[in-house]
């Protein structure tokens, strides 16, 4: 199948390059366009009127606008993993090989089964979902079934589940003056600001700069607008201090003049060339901003105004002047303002037939009317369009005469046409200005909302400030550029403003909703994308949803991907009329970023996949990897989980083997990730005394001590050992998870709370590699490589001090720190060496331990051994437990004050029946216990039963926090929190795990399973 060719293309007009023909397909039909086209202009050139079906009623829809406001022409662009739904055909530059498909139709665009929804329109009124699901069907599950079919019927385009193959980039920029929008006002502002010598950025969402100048037949400085644009662009590029960013949409205006913008770097290509991003996200921090965002034309509201062939007048003119595309041959222009006359004049001059201009304003002179009259164009003053007739495309427009109150009078007439160019006037694009918090206000003379007083360092220039004619726009932009440069502290530049002339305009009329047609039905659409009609707005009013914010949410007015760019003003006007107030009193809805949709890929930028988060590796990471360990994430770190001995060894088998090897002879583990904080100063001991619940002033040099910290509210914060390395020098360790938090905690107290303490603290986690050697043969292995006496007399439990590995060796010695501390409960030493020596030291220990079958162990075995010893860790320090809950209440010093001391004494925190840490074992000695499972009394019923049937919740007396398996005892073990648990040792309770239907009898025991007297670690 092929199309009819470019039947609507004018022979000469437009700024397209006719020497470069471009092939593309729409719904599988091959077509051609020219370089410089958009998809929308190429479709119109090829005579395509029907481009989509509407969201709710599946009505036929055509191209409505020629810009970012497009509500109808949403297409699915590209194929395969590059598919992008809901793209606006008006903003897609045409490129060779472009593939686009229409959306919301089944089985085909021309014949859509769900168009029968139109017949049921009165059953799908505003608030349909709300009424259905909050009304009689509330609290039933019916909505689940409804939702599935409604969602499918009322769907937007579908995307792809395949990963995006393209790259996205992020960029930051700073400038003195940022100009947003490169139409006449923006360019005038940029050239004025640039003359000051400061850094200027000029960005525009379209393919090339020029804005409306590209779409009009204007002259500036005596030059045709295209020539003037080329001259100015050249001058700006040559200036050296101006960055011009076309294809770039400023979508968000954030605090303190931060502007978010997305540049479509390669969206005009099938796929980006190597090393080029598809899109780039800009964060621009500007000293001063000039908003020159232009204006968006509003529609008139009459019956069936959504028929393909009903378009915005400025768009019709733009398509003709920019692309040489005549969207119709026989045209009716319907408007409430002067600007639309220009459409009639330009299209007339290009050879189209202007059936008539229907002007809702009463009689009166005006220069533009004279221009039309001179060309023999008929215009009807005081008439309104009332219905677009024709099924799939407009064939004629019914019109009615208006009396002085705007009411219909007389009999209905019809004007034959294949295109209705309508205009409800131009509404300044206030999105960015409003995002700053500036409150828009209604200007009754200009019939539009204008930007309120600036809240940030910005000013609006040109059409977005309600300055609409070309000469005024140029002057206004010029003045804004000068003012911005001066406000940014630059010298006021000497430069002439560009000059143009234009006829005087007669003000528009605040008239959008036209009378109902006589004897014929028809929905008057306000929001095309969401299928919201004027009747829906009035329904919302009748039902009490009269604020614009309620109106929006009740009817979905303005909630489509276009965010109501062509529907909010007429919608608010209808509401204002229904309420009997001025539109200014209804106000506008709040504009929030983004101005137009932004791809999530652009927001994510390059931070996807392995670049999503930083990966922290210990100095021994490479060694672990060579052993083929399995990894586990610990915050940003990765740590070995276990080292499988072969491909068949399971996690359980591996960690049991590692546990037994360590307890039986010798194990080694990488503990670099533990937080290490170096604390120095004359008041260091006093500071530790305030941080920890236990005392530090008696700790001698060369000794380590276990410490516990509370939050200010008395709940346990973190634990770890701190060693005294010198008179005023301590090394604190924290848990891996809390390393950053404790550093911040220390910083806060030293900088803000007790700045008088003479203490400095710094994180040295990454400066030192740490490894623990544990097991009965730990001393024998270590003795072979260190230079100090390791006997219990010389280096007892909790001793610490400097140690040198391989002292005097030709292979090189390593100076480090040795600590006799133990997490496993075995005779153990922890060695810290400077990070760069980590792997060498590790390999040295592996070699020294070879004769004892040294076994590296991972997180699972480490965790299992600490459970065997009843050491609490993250699962027990859950942000709700006190020191006493953990069995460490006696550590709390009564001789000193410390953080949390006072509030830890509150009544509820010292109750006798709080949950306390205990050990748990299955009564049958076999069944595995489950982390997170609930604990209930032994005789608790199996099921609570429903409340309706008189059932009562089963009291929960605790939960399982950590689970493991003791190879020494040869049965599963666990730690748990049980109400009053320490007083219930030996009692039997029940573990319930409803997810797996488990009910397991368990016995409460002491939380130390192995070597309860601690003989091994003192050995």
């Amino acid at each position, binding site marked *: 199948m092929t199309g009819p060719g470019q039947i609507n293309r004018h022979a000469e007009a437009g700024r397209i390059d006719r020497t470069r023909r471009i092939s593309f397909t729409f719904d599988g039909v091959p077509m051609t366009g020219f370089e410089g086209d958009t998809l929308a202009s190429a479709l119109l050139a090829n005579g395509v009127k029907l481009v989509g079906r509407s969201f709710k009623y599946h009505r036929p829809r055509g191209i409505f606008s020629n810009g970012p406001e497009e509500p109808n022409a949403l297409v699915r662009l590209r194929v395969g993993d590059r598919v992008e739904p809901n793209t606006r055909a008006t903003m897609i530059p045409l490129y060779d090989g472009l593939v686009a498909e229409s959306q919301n139709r089944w089985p085909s665009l021309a014949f859509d089964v769900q168009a029968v929804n139109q017949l049921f329109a009165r059953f799908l009124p505003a608030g349909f979902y709300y009424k259905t699901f909050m009304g009689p069907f509330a609290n039933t599950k019916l909505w689940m079934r409804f939702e599935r079919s409604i969602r499918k019927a009322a769907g937007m385009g579908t995307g792809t589940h395949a990963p995006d193959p393209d790259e996205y980039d992020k960029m930051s920029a700073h400038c003195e003056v940022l100009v947003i929008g490169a139409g006449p006002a923006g360019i005038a502002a940029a050239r004025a600001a640039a003359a000051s010598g400061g850094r200027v950025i000029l960005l525009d969402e379209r393919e090339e700069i020029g804005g409306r100048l590209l779409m009009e037949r204007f002259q500036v400085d005596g030059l045709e607008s295209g020539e003037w644009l080329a001259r100015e662009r050249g001058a700006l590029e040559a200036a050296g201090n101006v960055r011009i960013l076309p294809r770039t949409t400023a979508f968000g205006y954030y605090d303190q003049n931060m502007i978010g913008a997305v540049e479509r770097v390669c969206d005009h290509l099938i796929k980006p060339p190597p090393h080029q991003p598809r899109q780039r996200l800009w964060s621009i*921090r500007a000293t001063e901003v000039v908003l020159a965002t232009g204006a968006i034309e509003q529609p008139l509201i009459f019956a069936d105004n959504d028929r393909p062939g009903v378009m915005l007048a400025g768009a019709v003119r733009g398509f003709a002047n920019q692309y040489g595309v005549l969207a119709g041959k026989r045209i009716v222009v319907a408007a409430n303002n002067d600007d639309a006359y220009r459409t009639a004049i330009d299209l007339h001059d290009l050879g189209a037939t202007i059936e008539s201009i229907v002007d809702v304003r009463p009689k009166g002179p005006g220069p533009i009317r004279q221009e039309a009259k001179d060309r023999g164009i008929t215009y009807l003053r005081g008439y309104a369009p009332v219905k677009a007739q024709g099924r799939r495309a407009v064939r004629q427009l019914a019109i009615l005469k208006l009396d002085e109150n705007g009411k219909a009078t007389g009999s209905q007439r019809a004007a034959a046409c294949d295109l209705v160019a309508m205009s409800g006037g131009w509404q300044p694009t206030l999105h960015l200005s409003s995002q700053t918090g500036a409150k828009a206000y209604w200007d009754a003379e200009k019939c539009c909302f204008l930007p309120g007083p600036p809240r940030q360092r910005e000013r609006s220039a040109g059409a977005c400030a309600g300055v609409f004619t070309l000469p005024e726009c140029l002057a206004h932009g010029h003045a804004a550029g000068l003012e911005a440069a001066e406000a940014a502290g630059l010298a006021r530049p000497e430069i002439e403003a560009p000059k143009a002339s234009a006829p005087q305009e007669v003000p528009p009329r605040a008239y959008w909703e036209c009378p109902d047609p006589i004897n014929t039905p028809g929905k008057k659409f306000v929001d095309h994308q969401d299928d919201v009609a004027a009747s829906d707005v009035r329904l919302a009013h009748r039902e009490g949803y009269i604020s614009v914010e309620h109106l929006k949410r009740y009817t979905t007015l303005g909630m489509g991907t276009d965010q109501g760019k062509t529907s909010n003003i007429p919608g608010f006007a209808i509401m204002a009329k229904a309420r009997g107030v001025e539109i200014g009193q209804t106000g506008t809805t709040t504009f929030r970023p983004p101005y137009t949709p932004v791809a999530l890929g652009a927001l994510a930028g390059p931070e996807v996949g392995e670049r999503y988060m930083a990966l922290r590796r210990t100095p021994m990471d490479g060694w672990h990897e060579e052993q083929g360990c399995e990894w586990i994430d610990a915050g940003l770190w990765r740590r070995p989980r276990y080292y499988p001995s072969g491909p068949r060894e399971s996690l359980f088998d591996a960690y049991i083997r590692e546990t037994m090897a360590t307890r039986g002879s010798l194990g080694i583990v990488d503990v670099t990730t533990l937080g290490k904080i170096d604390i120095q100063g004359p008041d260091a001991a006093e500071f530790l005394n305030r941080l920890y619940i236990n005392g530090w002033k008696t700790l001698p040099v060369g000794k380590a001590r276990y410490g516990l910290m509370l939050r200010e509210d008395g709940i346990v914060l973190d634990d770890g050992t701190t060693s005294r390395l010198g008179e005023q020098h301590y090394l604190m360790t924290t848990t891996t998870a809390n390393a950053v938090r404790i550093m911040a905690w220390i910083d806060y107290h030293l900088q803000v709370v007790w700045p008088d303490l003479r203490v400095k603290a710094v994180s040295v986690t990454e400066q030192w590699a740490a490894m623990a050697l544990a097991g009965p043969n730990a001393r024998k292995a270590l003795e072979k490589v260190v230079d100090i006496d390791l006997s219990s007399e010389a280096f007892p439990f909790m001793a610490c001090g400097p140690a040198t590995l391989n002292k005097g060796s030709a292979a090189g010695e390593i100076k480090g720190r040795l600590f006799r501390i133990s997490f496993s409960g075995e005779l153990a030493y922890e060695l810290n060496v400077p990070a760069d020596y980590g792997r060498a030291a590790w390999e040295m220990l592996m070699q020294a331990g070879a004769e004892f079958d040294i076994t590296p162990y991972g997180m699972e075995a480490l965790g299992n051994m600490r459970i065997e010893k009843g050491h609490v860790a993250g699962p027990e320090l859950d942000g709700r437990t006190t020191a006493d809950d953990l069995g460490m209440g006696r550590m709390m010093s009564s001789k000193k004050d410390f953080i949390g001391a006072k*509030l830890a004494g509150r009544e509820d925190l010292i109750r006798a029946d709080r949950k306390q840490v205990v050990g748990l074992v299955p009564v049958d000695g076999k069944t595995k216990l489950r982390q997170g499972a609930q604990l209930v009394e032994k005789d608790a019923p199996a099921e609570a039963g429903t409340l309706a049937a008189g059932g009562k919740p089963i009291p929960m007396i605790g939960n399982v926090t950590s689970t493991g398996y003791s190879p020494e005892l040869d049965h599963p073990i666990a730690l748990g929190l049980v109400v009053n648990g320490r007083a219930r040792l030996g009692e039997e309770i029940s573990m319930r795990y409803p997810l797996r239907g488990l009910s397991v009898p368990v016995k409460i025991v002491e939380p130390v399973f192995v070597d309860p007297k601690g003989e091994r670690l003192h050995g």
Partner: protein
Amino acid sequence: MLRIECPWCGPRDMVEFTYVGDGTLQRPAIGAEAGHFDYVYLRDNPKGVHVELWRHGAGCRQHVAVKRDTLSHDILQCGKPGEVTK
């Protein structure tokens, strides 16, 4: 995106900072018997001027006192802790 004038590093984007909280709190002195509950739990939630602390975690690691208007997000003053008052 707020821009905070770090007294040590100069003007930086807020992404480099972590919000800490009310910058006017006075912790009860070590050994004091009262005032802890207020210090931990009681906060004003002002509409308007607020003095707060931000920690320059991706910079100098210092706490910065910031006087900010919670209504407009205007930053009125930045300084060292204790130097900025309401």
